[in-house]
């Protein structure tokens, strides 16, 4: 099964989740996702998702100058972002539970 198709639906949730404990700039988020096991996540998809969540008012951003290379834009979860994370998390758990049950029947 192509996990990239699955990923599309849950990338929002994944990005919100990795920003829950600590703010991060784009590459941070990408690294955390990959480190978490989502190897196939595309660089551009992460940046696009960050833009969309930011435009939706779920993230706030601030710029930190960097000694080497360009300055970095850090994203952090704001209150609506946390609420969305909690809500999407519940939806995901219930969905996963349903699917587990289905798979249990099949198996």
């Amino acid at each position: 099964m192509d996990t990239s198709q699955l990923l599309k639906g849950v990338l929002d949730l994944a990005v919100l989740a990795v920003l829950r404990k600590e703010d991060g700039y784009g590459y941070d988020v990408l690294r955390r996702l990959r480190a978490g096991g989502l190897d196939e996540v595309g660089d551009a998809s992460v940046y696009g998702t960050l833009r969309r969540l930011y435009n939706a008012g779920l993230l706030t951003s601030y710029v930190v100058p960097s000694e080497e290379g360009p300055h970095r834009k850090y994203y952090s979860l704001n209150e609506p972002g946390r609420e969305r994370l909690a809500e999407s998390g519940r939806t995901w758990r219930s969905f996963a539970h349903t699917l587990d049950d289905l798979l249990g029947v099949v198996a």
Partner: protein
Amino acid sequence: MSSTHTRAEVQDYLNRMRTALADLPDVEISEIMDDAGGHVVEVAEELGEDFSAEALTARLGTPEVYARELRVAAGYPPANQAVAAVGPKPVFAARFAFWALVAGTAAAFGMGIGGRNGFPLALLVAVFVVWAIVLLFRKPELVGQVGELPETIALRSALEQAEQGPLGKTIDYLKSLQPAWWLARAGLIAIAGLILDGVGVIFLLTLGMAALALLSGPRAKVDRRWLWVSLPAGAFAAGVLLFIIGSVIPNSRYDSGYATSSYAPATPSLPSNVYVFDKDGKALTDVYLYDEEGRPLDSSFYGCDGNGDGSRYRDDNRYPKPKVDYDGRGHCREIGGVPFAVSIPSVTGLPPAPTGSGDPSSSVTPPSSVSSAPSTVPASK
């Protein structure tokens, strides 16, 4: 590989990426290039010794692929739609049409209320409105685009809120009067033409406009393009109505004020006769009086004619005027001279004042005695 080379290739990658995003709003592009562009630079640096344009592409995909993936994830519209390329132009035309309508309505109201100072500006606005109308009738889909403009949506929702608010009933009532208003405004436009021009070319032109205004009201209900005629026409008529109301109410007051002010300089308020004395209290006769602008200070005089048995008007500025007397047989006689005397105070700088009999020392004694104050005493009879 040299770092300058690296930078050139990274720059090339970034430029291609920017091109692929060019249809997005400027703010979005700059945010993305800050963010994802920084990422590209960072990835290029990570590659270090292994860096090449190919390596970068292998790692991130081509700039176009990167941009497309980013657009999808960010929820932007795909770039390869024809609409995106020509997108800004219809929006511009729609925006032009919208603001031409707003400006046209405002200018028409100003013209109606009698603001003729702004006539050249109003003419310019009128040209824009006509242009907008031409655009709208040539491209019917433009109306829909005007309806989707954020400013139109904001205006519409404000109107809808007003209709649901406390003014809702008033608005409903006014709406029920609309057909009557369409008639009335056609009349008002024709009246404005009549005021401006009598029965001339402009009047005939306004008659045509009045007919168009009459037509545009019901048409605009079903075809929004007619709004570009109907709204300015209504605003102009409303302005004319206010102008007419305004010129009827305060005019009675203005008229009297105007009358007195134009009447005043022609006939200065003068007593019917003037007597003049020099510093010694000597009466002066045959003196001609003028005001500060050199106009003779005429006062009406009803003197005797040459034959001595009639009378005639003889207005002039020669003072003092003789006293007119009729003898027992009805013969007219003009009596010259000064009927009283005054005493001029010897102290200079004080205005001369008539004195009473209590201070005869410096007074010139007339043939008859001086009574108190400037009283008139018959000099000779």
